[in-house]
């Protein structure tokens, strides 16, 4: 089997292009190989079970009435006729929520109601929920609900929301918390009207600007995409007495459990969250989405309740953050970067969701991977009357990479310096701290940049200005601090009498291949073939705690907990075997599924049964990992790993029509060590194509009155196979500096980051105009 697709090139640090599996250390048997996914058989035969497939006896179906007003006070709701519809069991408005329930949810700020209480804040806000025997009956009932509103002024975008005369979305500040920060970082809740959270970071001396030869100020606009996960937001809740079970298409079952416990006043040990396969998330499926409605209705009806959104409703449930980014950058005439001051305004939509965290990260990432004497950042999370924004692949890094890598290019051209040379001059070196108090950069940035430049032929590019169609090339380096902030991970590995291995951890299989890659790590350490390792289903009663499947933390954070658990159970087995064999455990190792003493295998089962009895025993060990806190690190603890995406693009620009054709797109990430190269390539391809779509066409089109114009699957355009560039190359680097098992880093988000700026930079290279607003449509190119 060849793991390499036709357009895939592998690259090691030495640029010899040797096959990864062949170059993996000969000691490695499972890691570094493109083993077929553990979920492959279920997914290609259709038997894989998702939350959409869960059916419980007596299950009711929920549907909700959504506001068609962007901002309005609710004057009255009449549900009388709806309650009479055959099959309807319960109709719930804000007034019907039982008093003992805390009806708000959110991450840092608890501002989103289960059902609107007195006002609606965006088109799509939930006004009323119904549980009925069928979805059709629930929809029929909702058609009979009469609502009268008093319209309020609409803050349809960032600028309207920040205007002096803007109408406040929240009259009073909702309950919220601010994290503790280290050197240079700070944050505050609600610093001004319609701003729910502000993050600041500052280092160095502001007088640095005065010493610069040039100071450039530029503004960039970032568009907003929806996640478009194909499996809808869906949950099934079954509340029985004081206990509940919830099946959810969810990326973070343990935080969901905690939030439901807080809202519904149920102990966490009376809530079981099950997560079957998740049909895509890309960040959207963190924290409460459909679950509060299904739990509330199940509680009120005494029946299991399924709540499955349509894709149109999904568009109105969670999105990426649109943004305005203003950068003031001071440089010396020779291209040395000195100081950057930035103001970032993120469009959070109507409820805070994950926005404060995205605000923190965008504010932190705006300097890019360069040396600076002075950084001064303010990032504001602006509430508007649009759909709530939240975590989205790249998590603020996509916005900042767009602006920062565009401006670096612009400054280089203004100074008459090649953009490549400008970057090479200023990039941080391997091991340099990102900012004071931070961990060192764990990739050689120049090596990666040279790689993508070589692949696209950057240094050989020529400019023919004779025709109307011009050719150009652009490069970019996007990044994010990966692995979450100070994120803990716990895992358990058990080995049965017969040597079968049980891996238990809370990382959700959302498509990224967690079951396979984490099992490969376990199998490698325990010296067993991959098929000897099983991956436990996600059930919060039995699994060790986990904060969630996000921040590219699976390999680099959870992987370290698994490594420790597997090492622990290995040591137990070796110590046990040593005592049985009467030798020192240092004389033993695990391999080929047995205990090896020199070349002699000792099967585990006879030893176990001799000692523990014929019914057997299980060896079990837990592993824990958390980056150590450090008060000098700006974000509580040093970053676990740096997720970097290098990009290069070659474009044709038709100066008569404004049409941009991407001839070649090169994207590269550094995995440190690829645990499963084939799956890794799929992640890097997918992220790059998402970036390509954002660059050229995909976006949510809001008018300035809070109305989403392309609010359906047909008019909201996502990339199709035909949108791939003629030449599309992803390059997996394995530089080997990662903190995870076998030198691995996290992956899966890096290659979305550099694409839009690489394409904008290529357009500038081709035709000398600068596009500062996404997506880069033909009209915008013509106007520029």
């Amino acid at each position: 089997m060849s793991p390499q697709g036709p357009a895939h090139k592998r690259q090691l640090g030495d640029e010899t292009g040797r096959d990864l599996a062949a170059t993996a250390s000969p000691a490695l048997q499972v890691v570094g190989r493109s083993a077929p996914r553990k979920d492959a058989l279920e997914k290609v035969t259709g038997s894989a079970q998702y939350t959409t497939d869960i059916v419980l006896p007596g299950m009711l179906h929920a549907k909700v009435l959504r506001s068609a007003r962007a901002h309005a006070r609710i004057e009255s709701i009449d549900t009388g006729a709806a309650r009479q519809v055959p099959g309807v069991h319960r109709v719930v408005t804000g007034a019907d929520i039982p008093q003992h329930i805390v009806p708000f949810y959110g991450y840092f700020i608890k501002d989103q109601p289960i059902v609107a209480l007195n006002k609606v804040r965006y088109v799509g806000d939930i006004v009323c929920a119904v549980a009925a025997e069928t979805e059709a009956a629930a929809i029929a009932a909702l058609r009979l609900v009469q609502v009268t509103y008093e319209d309020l002024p609409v803050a349809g975008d960032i600028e309207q929301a920040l205007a002096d005369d803007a109408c406040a979305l929240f009259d009073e500040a909702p309950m919220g918390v601010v994290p503790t920060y280290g050197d240079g970082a700070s944050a505050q809740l609600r610093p001004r009207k319609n701003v729910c959270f502000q993050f600041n970071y500052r280092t160095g001396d502001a007088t640095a600007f005065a010493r610069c030869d040039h100071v450039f100020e530029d503004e960039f606009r970032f568009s907003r995409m929806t996640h478009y996960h194909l499996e809808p937001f869906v949950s099934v809740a079954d509340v029985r007495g004081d206990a509940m079970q919830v099946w959810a298409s969810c990326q973070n079952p343990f935080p969901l459990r905690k939030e439901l416990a807080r809202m519904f006043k149920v102990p966490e040990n009376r809530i079981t969250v099950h997560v079957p396969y998740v049909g895509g998330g890309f960040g959207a499926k963190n924290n409460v989405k459909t679950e509060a409605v299904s739990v509330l209705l199940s509680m009120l009806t005494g029946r299991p309740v399924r709540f499955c959104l349509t894709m149109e409703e999904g568009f109105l449930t969670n999105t990426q953050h649109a943004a305005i980014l203003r950068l003031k950058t001071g440089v010396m005439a020779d291209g040395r970067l000195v100081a950057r001051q930035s103001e970032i305004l993120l469009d959070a939509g109507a409820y805070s969701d994950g926005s404060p965290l995205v605000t923190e990260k965008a504010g932190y990432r705006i300097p890019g991977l360069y040396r600076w004497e002075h950084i001064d950042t303010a990032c504001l999370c602006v509430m508007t009357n649009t759909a709530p924004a939240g975590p989205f692949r790249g998590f603020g890094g996509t916005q900042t990479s767009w602006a920062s890598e565009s401006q670096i290019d612009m400054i280089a051209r203004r100074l008459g310096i090649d953009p490549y040379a400008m970057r090479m001059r200023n990039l941080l070196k391997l091991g340099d701290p990102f900012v004071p108090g931070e961990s060192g950069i764990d990739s050689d940035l120049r090596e990666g940049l040279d790689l993508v430049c070589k692949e696209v032929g950057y240094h050989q590019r020529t400019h023919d200005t004779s025709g109307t169609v011009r050719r150009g090339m652009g490069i970019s380096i996007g990044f994010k601090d990966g692995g979450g902030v100070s994120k803990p991970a716990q895992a358990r590995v058990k080995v049965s009498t017969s040597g079968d291995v049980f891996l238990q951890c809370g990382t959700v299989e959302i498509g990224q291949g967690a079951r396979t890659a984490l099992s490969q790590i376990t199998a490698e350490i325990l010296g067993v073939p991959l098929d000897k390792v099983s991956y436990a289903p996600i059930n919060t009663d039995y699994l060790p705690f986990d904060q969630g499947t996000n921040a590219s933390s699976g390999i680099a954070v959870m992987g370290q907990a698994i490594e420790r658990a597997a090492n622990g159970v290995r040591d137990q087995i070796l110590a046990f075997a040593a005592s049985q064999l009467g030798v020192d455990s240092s004389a033993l190792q695990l391999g080929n599924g047995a205990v090896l003493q020199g070349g002699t295998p000792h099967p585990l089962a006879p030893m176990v049964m001799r000692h523990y009895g014929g019914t057997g025993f299980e060896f079990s060990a837990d592993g824990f990992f958390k980056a150590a806190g450090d008060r000098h690190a700006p974000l509580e603890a040093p970053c676990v790993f740096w997720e970097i995406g290098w990009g290069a693009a070659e474009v044709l620009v038709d100066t008569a029509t404004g049409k941009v054709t991407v001839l070649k797109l090169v994207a590269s990430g550094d995995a440190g060590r690829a645990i499963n190269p084939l799956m890794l390539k799929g992640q890097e391809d997918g992220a790059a194509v998402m970036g390509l779509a954002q660059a050229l066409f995909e976006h949510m089109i809001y008018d300035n009155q809070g109305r989403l114009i392309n609010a359906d699957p047909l008019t909201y355009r996502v990339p199709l196979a035909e949108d791939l560039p003629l030449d599309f190359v992803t390059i997996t680097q394995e530089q080997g500096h990662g903190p995870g098992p076998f030198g691995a880093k996290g992956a899966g988000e890096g290659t979305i980051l550099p694409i839009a700026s690489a394409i904008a930079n290529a357009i500038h290279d081709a035709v000398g105009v600068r596009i500062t607003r996404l997506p880069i449509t033909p009209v915008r190119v013509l106007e520029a």
Partner: protein
Amino acid sequence: MSDDAALVNGQSECALRLTLNGAERTITVPVERTAADLLRDDLRLTGTRIGCSRGVCGACVALVDGVPAATCSMFAFQLDGCDVQTIEGLAQEGKLHPVQQAFVEQGAFQCGYCTSGMILLTKALLEQHPRPDRATITEWISSNVCRCTGYAQIIAAVEQAAARLAGEEKT
């Protein structure tokens, strides 16, 4: 009785005869039932996924008389007299179809939600074009959405399956 009932001579239910994954079936369904709901809810063939419910994404594709059809956007009664194939009918006696095998080997899926539709689409493509060129593959695959893979590995899987079915093992 719903307005839709008029479509089937005023009845609220109708009896369908179809061949489903090779077996003759007679099924009585409400006239307003979609084909996808028939497959998923009544017959529990949940390998047919519902993504957009608007005939756009292709997660719900089944082969109806060999042609890929968005079952979310057709009525169950439209299957009367048809030969219907779902993902559950593809593997024979525990052996994966060459298209399924190629998807596994090329890593042509991640979350798996589009996979049933993509595999059936590929099967239909290869029946019409046993050795499709890249443009033909791209044109066909562009009728379904995959949000995870970026399509390169799907295209590779189609090429591998074509080579396998044509008896030329891909290197």
